[in-house]
């Protein structure tokens, strides 16, 4: 960055504002763009975090003028914006919004897009910088990337940067993700590729690093000497919604386990990075992902399930096979649980239990460290009957915060110890002003800060974990569980086999 006389490292009031640039969104009419991206762009503009010269370019197949697009974008932003609506902010943004219509295999459309970008350079002074957001099915990637290569849009030069943002899924297995990575890397250089895992944009996930590395309290016990096991849960109460086509091919393991859960595992288990920079953090995460080991007894320690008809939150819920667009004989899993190990000195022998599922009783994501029991209890056995393991729980969503569970004496004349929990809530009332994950991540892309984005080596290492599981599961039928239950019985048995049980989140 060129030095600016007005900038002062001690001056922490001034926000980080990206250089002049354009954001090009492919698939701007899609769900993600309307529900997350456009509102995030508005919120950034409203908070004054977009550069002076900024333009938004939408590309989609629909036959629209700039006007129609501006209308849609306005409605989308207005419906989902986090910050108060201010018409004048939107108007200003709208004046730099362009729409390019065309299909992805249409050479003319991409020439037009390249021209529009060049026009914006002179009319809006975006300085040639652009980020391309691929909010499109991965099957379309090759066509779009080829087109970008053909028109020369993807080239970063010393004068300008060009970045690409890729949404998950990053492939469907190791081979396809390698293929995808090679394809993307052949068009963009590796440091210009940003893979969005929106979980990493959440405050609590970033707070996990603060919790671990800014305090002296937790790090000494953050290892296999004190930790008995780690449970990482991401539960959703919703079904598959309208995404049957996508979900049938994907399943819970590929959809969630491969990315979100393994990233949370990496952040939980990683060593302290040398410094808080993108490269160092990603290096440490990669080390953990490479050290992940699969259970030897896959049959017991890797469970997948599929929800059946049941009741959830007082409403009847359909079974997965009855969902619209799903094969009545489908063997796609909607629940996956697995016991992983991390083969490092710090974590040797500590099981990491990961689970995710749809149509579980509530929407919750959390990381729970379950500590070993005290080696000796000076109390009578009957005194500590109700005492469980101490736990440190990082609640990612909802109610972002931290819970510490420990034993305490029950007030009264007898000695009786039972579990109580102490809550730290940086959530609820207070998070309404903390930025939405997409807002944060989008800003980071424009700033070129890759700290919160997984590197392709991480993605590949994650697939290396998932592939053997998928291989084992292939051809089998997932265990059924009723909608509104915490997964199939086999998942409970998986922990019971080692004398543990799932924490109810």
């Amino acid at each position, binding site marked *: 960055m060129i030095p600016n006389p*007005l900038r002062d490292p001690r001056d922490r*009031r001034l926000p980080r504002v990206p250089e*002049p640039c354009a954001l090009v969104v492919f698939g701007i009419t899609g769900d993600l763009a309307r529900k997350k991206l456009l509102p995030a762009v508005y919120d950034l503009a409203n908070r004054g975090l977009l550069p002076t*010269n900024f333009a938004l370019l939408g590309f989609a197949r629909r036959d629209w003028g700039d006007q129609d697009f501006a209308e849609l974008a306005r409605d989308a932003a207005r419906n989902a914006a986090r910050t108060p609506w201010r018409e004048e902010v939107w108007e200003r943004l709208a*004046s730099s919004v362009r729409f390019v219509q065309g299909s992805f295999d249409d050479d003319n459309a991409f020439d037009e897009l390249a021209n529009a970008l060049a026009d914006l350079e002179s009319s809006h002074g975006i300085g040639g910088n652009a980020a391309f957001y691929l909010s499109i099915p991965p099957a379309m990637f090759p066509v779009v990337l080829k087109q970008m290569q053909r028109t020369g849009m993807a080239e970063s030069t010393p004068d300008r940067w060009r970045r690409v943002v890729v949404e998950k899924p990053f492939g469907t297995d190791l081979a396809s993700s390698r293929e995808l990575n090679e394809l993307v890397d052949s068009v963009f250089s590796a440091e210009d590729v940003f893979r969005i895992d929106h979980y990493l944009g959440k405050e609590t996930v970033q707070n996990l690093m603060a919790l671990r590395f800014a305090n002296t309290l937790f790090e000494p016990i953050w290892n296999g000497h004190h930790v008995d096991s780690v449970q990482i849960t991401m539960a959703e109460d919703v079904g598959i919604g309208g995404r049957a086509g996508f979900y049938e091919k994907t399943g819970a393991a590929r959809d969630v386990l491969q990315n979100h859960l393994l990233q949370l595992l990496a952040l939980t288990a990683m060593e302290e990075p040398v410094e808080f920079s993108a490269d160092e953090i990603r290096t440490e995460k990669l080390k953990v992902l490479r050290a992940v080991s699969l259970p030897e007894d896959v049959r017991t320690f890797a469970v997948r399930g599929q929800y059946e008809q049941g009741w959830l939150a007082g409403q009847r819920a359909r079974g997965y096979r009855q969902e619209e667009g799903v094969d009545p004989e489908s063997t796609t899993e909607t629940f996956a649980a697995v016991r992983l190990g991390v083969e490092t000195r710090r974590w040797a022998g500590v099981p990491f239990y990961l689970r995710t599922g749809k149509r579980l009783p509530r929407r919750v994501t959390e990381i729970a460290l379950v500590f070993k029991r005290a080696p000796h209890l000076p109390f009578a056995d009957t005194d500590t009957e109700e005492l469980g393991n101490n736990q440190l729980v990082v609640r990612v969503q909802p109610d972002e915060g931290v819970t510490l569970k420990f034993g305490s004496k029950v007030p009264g004349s007898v000695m009786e110890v039972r579990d109580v929990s102490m809550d730290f809530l940086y959530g609820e009332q207070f998070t309404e002003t903390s930025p939405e994950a997409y807002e944060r991540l989008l800003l980071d892309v424009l700033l070129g800060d890759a700290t919160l984005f997984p590197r392709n080596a991480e993605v590949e290492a994650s697939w290396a974990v998932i592939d053997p599981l998928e291989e084992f599961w292939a051809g089998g039928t997932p265990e059924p569980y009723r909608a509104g239950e915490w997964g199939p019985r086999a998942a409970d048995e998986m922990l019971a086999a080692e004398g543990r049980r799932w924490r109810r989140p």
Partner: protein
Amino acid sequence: MTTLWDTTGSAVVKELAAQRRTGGAVLSGVALTLVVVADEGRVTEAEDAATTAAEQHPCRILVVVRRQIDAPVPRLDAEVSIGGRLGPGEAVVMRMYGRLALHAESVVLPLLAADAPVVTWWHSDPPSRLTTDALAVIADRRITDSTVAADQMRALRTRAQDYAPGDTDLAWTRATGWRATLTSALDSVSGRRGDAVQVLGGRIEGDPGAATAQLLAGWIQSRSGARLDVVQATRHAGPSGIDSVVLQLDQDEEVRVHADRRGGAVISQPYRPDATMALPDRSLGDLLGEELRRLDPDEPYAEALEVTTGVSGLAGRTGVRSHVWVDPAEQDGAGSGAVDAEQVDEGSPHGAAPTVPPTSEGTDEVALHGEHDTPDPTAPETSEAVR
């Protein structure tokens, strides 16, 4: 919410504890205590702002309203609420009458959240020497607002003379948006050139009497070394007192940023079309929220204040203040500032100014002997230690 009429500090502490118990786990993380000193006329405004700020930073809000210092009998009325009209956290609004108003800290001290930083904000005219207010001495950060003063420049000079690290002023916070916009404007010039930019001079058009405009000029000067004046704008400048900023750059270029009065700023620079950036008028709560974000000394503010007022050596001052007892009733004129005990010689008309006595005995007749209208049922037995 509970209102306690004619009460005592310990009753307020008890009520807060009681509400925490019965209210359930409403709030468990308190990052700081925010003490708000406000006039009766501005108390609603201050409460609204504190509520907004509390949504961003979990804090305990203690609003102190000092009323009728000359009232014969000291009295404390308090409103205690958790998760009520004053936001999600704990809040106590206290109205103090009579001599008690001069001993507000005696009520505030036991109410501070344990070992959490304290921020005191005066939404009124602050004392010219903050050390004379015990509520400033207990605070880690002290927030004043020079823009509420009748003579803003004089208020700024007072703040500079009295400055200690940890002081800050909302007039400075009001400049943040402008500072961000100007920085971003220079970024875009240097981005175009591919080379660094130098600021050689310029001017701020606006209200020369506005503290924010002056601080902004001071800041640009402290950063660039160039000379900058605040000149009267042709049209009425907005609440910040800044209408536009013109910066003379090297290579004979000029950047002009001016408020469009629709929540934006238009940036004009050579070889580029005009660009607009968000520069909204910010609410008091939003400004306060920015202040609570960081509690460490604000060096850029100190430097800007130095240049603006010509008072030097701000950065080297110690951040520790000790309380100087001043009785306004014994002052000759209001606003003349306090006098240090050591500075007053025997010949002074009102004798040596009293320092904080080792005991409170005998120093405050009314506070000691004034009686409550009704006996306080919650007051502890005299023999019992006060919790």
